[in-house]
């Protein structure tokens, strides 16, 4: 009898504990990179806290250390993050190594349809294997590499006249990569208001992903492909095609003739610094920074304008942006999924865009007022139509580091030729895929 009572009491206790656990308020930790949109998300998440009763804490890591820090966390099965807004290239590793929770069932239950989000972002941020309806993230932050420039300089009559005299055409936003270079070279070393200014700030960083993100901004418009046939890992003739060689030579010429002195290891922060300090006429960077730049009291407002990465043979922009995933090692997965359900709502997505985050929700992007909502909104839509991403394989880090090395060796250290750099890159990548058993 006693044992029967004990068993009954135990069952009731376990049931009560389970119920209490599901009903209780959790403290969720969301991990992301430390940048402007992260601050917007903190603001946005206050509504979630008020609605759900859960509290949010945030772990934001500076970009140069973001991948190292977060991938170490995932690889060690760490429980720091319940939700992770991870880079698009991590999706393969996140899915195959079991770091991310597969969201298909949850999406079905919560009534979240991937058709409500821009196709390019679903493909890039959510699916693994690529393009299949297996979802490991919800598109959280659409992004691409774009350009901004000193509109006030471009409008000055003396500068326009000098440009016309030098090139025989009007100074305007470039419509091709070659025009971009020509404009940058025009500004290089020019005296403006008593200061020497330079052409453009581009990405040359060696340590994380910088130079690869910059170089691909030239490679894609020339028609660069990773494989001859998608999924075949057949890279010979694609990665080192004549167009790819030409694009790489172009990027090196850009670096050598149109960037500030000492610009050998520069990424997002350096690009913003160079522009904000009035050092350069143009700069490449992610759309994510554009709201902050437009609001900048020194160089924003009427002084700045934006353009999409110019085409050459094709239109093409380097994809940025991230999806939000639930970390499989979290013991607060229910609450984390609640956050995703809340975040996916159209009205929340509209607020997200309003605060400076780049929503990928069709209700926001297709809104008739979207293009006029910010000076860079139209460019963002155009850019997202032709984005291309780096490998998203589970071994993306090895592939990325090889490209970082080969590109920096050629562009910055001036070693070898473009053809040699791309040939060596194929060798490196082949070795990686052979180790993976994919070749």
């Amino acid at each position, binding site marked *: 009898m006693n044992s029967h009572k004990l068993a009954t009491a135990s069952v009731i206790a376990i049931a009560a504990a389970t119920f209490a656990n599901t009903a209780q308020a959790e403290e969720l930790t969301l991990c992301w990179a430390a940048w402007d949109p992260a601050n917007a998300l903190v603001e946005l998440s206050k509504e979630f806290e008020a609605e759900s009763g859960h509290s949010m804490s945030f772990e934001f890591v500076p970009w140069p250390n973001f991948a*190292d820090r977060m991938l170490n966390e995932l690889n060690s099965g760490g429980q720091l993050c319940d939700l992770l807004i991870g880079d698009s290239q991590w999706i393969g590793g996140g899915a195959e190594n079991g770091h991310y929770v597969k969201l298909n069932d949850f999406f079905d239950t919560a009534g979240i349809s991937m058709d409500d989000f821009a196709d390019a972002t679903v493909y890039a941020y959510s699916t693994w294997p690529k393009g299949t309806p297996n979802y490991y993230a919800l598109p959280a932050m659409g992004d691409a590499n774009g350009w901004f420039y000193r509109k006030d300089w471009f409008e000055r009559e003396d500068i326009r006249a000098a440009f016309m005299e030098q090139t025989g055409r009007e100074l305007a936003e470039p419509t091709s990569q070659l025009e971009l270079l020509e404009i940058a070279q025009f500004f290089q070393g020019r005296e403006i208001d008593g200061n020497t200014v330079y052409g453009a700030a581009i990405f040359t960083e060696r340590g994380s992903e910088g130079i690869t993100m910059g170089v691909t901004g030239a490679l894609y418009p020339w028609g660069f492909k990773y494989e001859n046939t998608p999924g075949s890992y057949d890279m010979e003739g694609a990665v080192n095609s004549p167009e790819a060689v030409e694009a790489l030579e172009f990027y090196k010429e850009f670096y050598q003739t149109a960037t500030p002195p000492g610009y050998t290891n520069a990424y997002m922060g350096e690009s913003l610094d160079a522009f904000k300090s009035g050092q350069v006429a143009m700069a490449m960077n992610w759309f994510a920074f554009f709201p902050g730049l437009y609001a900048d009291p020194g160089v924003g407002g009427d002084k700045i304008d934006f353009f999409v990465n110019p085409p050459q043979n094709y239109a093409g922009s380097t994809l940025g942006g991230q999806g939000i995933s639930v970390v499989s090692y979290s013991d607060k997965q229910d609450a984390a999924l609640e956050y995703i359900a809340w975040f996916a709502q159209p009205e929340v997505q509209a607020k997200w865009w309003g605060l400076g985050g780049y929503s990928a929700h069709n209700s926001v992007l297709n809104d008739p007022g979207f293009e006029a909502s910010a000076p860079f909104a139209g460019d963002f839509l155009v850019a997202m139509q032709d984005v291309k991403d780096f490998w998203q394989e589970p071994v993306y880090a090895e592939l990325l580091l090889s490209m970082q090395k080969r590109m920096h*060796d050629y562009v910055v250290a001036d070693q070898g030729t473009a053809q040699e750099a791309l040939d060596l890159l194929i060798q490196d990548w082949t070795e990686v895929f052979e180790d993976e058993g994919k070749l």
Partner: protein
Amino acid sequence: MSDKTINRVAKATPRRLARKVRGLSDRAIAWIFVGPTIFLLLAINIFPLIWTINLSFTNFKANRINRAVDYIGLRNYERILTDGDIWLSMQATAHFLFWTIFFQVLIGFALAWLINRKFKGNDIWTTIIVLPMMLSPAVVGNFWTFLYQPQIGLFNYVVAFFTGADPSSFEMLGSVDLAPWSIVIVDTWMWTPFVMLICLAGLRSIPDYIYEAAEVDRASKLRQFFTITIPMVMPFLMLAVLFRGIENFKMFDLVVQLTGGGPGSTTELASINLKREAFEKWRTGYSSAFAIILFVTVFGLASIYVKALNKVKER
């Protein structure tokens, strides 16, 4: 006798414990004292070393724990020893090692020799000189990055002042030719005081009477320097070289902060390469083999060097 410390301790020891200890041999008591240290040594040093050797024969990747691990024999070692990029990083390490030690010993000894002389403000100068080695390598790397900046950097302006060149016409960190020297300069600036202190200890350990005897024998100052000072400081100098050699072979933080291994891979020292392989590419088996090769290299060189050092001491 009865109020001696040992007796007081014996009295204070609980009877049960005293009974237990009394039954142990001296050797057993010695083991009790040494045991924890040996255990820690095995756990922290020996076991990881053996585990690393084991991993070096596999294709294990720490970020792919679900993947099957295969033993691939000496494949990792073969790959490393035939990889041109690895040899380039070893060359960069050798260049860094040789020139930093050369300059640090030269300047460190000269400074020690000057500081050893009695003059007003000797202590203050010693303190000022040793300041750089008290700073964090991250801080040093960061501010030298600014000093080397071609447009606003003080270093470029100083060089321009003496040479008449345009300050922004050369890039210490961005030039393939200058970057290896830029890291040598910073390491020398930071660690010369360390060598100076060791040399100073050596100089101050030389008894005055030896110089006095040399004076009596009318030996010139130059003769005294080469026959007394240098031989007697030599063991200290060699010790400084050993310390700096081991430290600089594994140099990482300062160089990462300054150049990140660039431009290209010009300043990618072996330790930076190893870190990239192990914790960025996650090639755990491959990087374990690389670590073993580096370990054997340092251990072998250090053993030879220590033997030479002992011979010098015996002289």
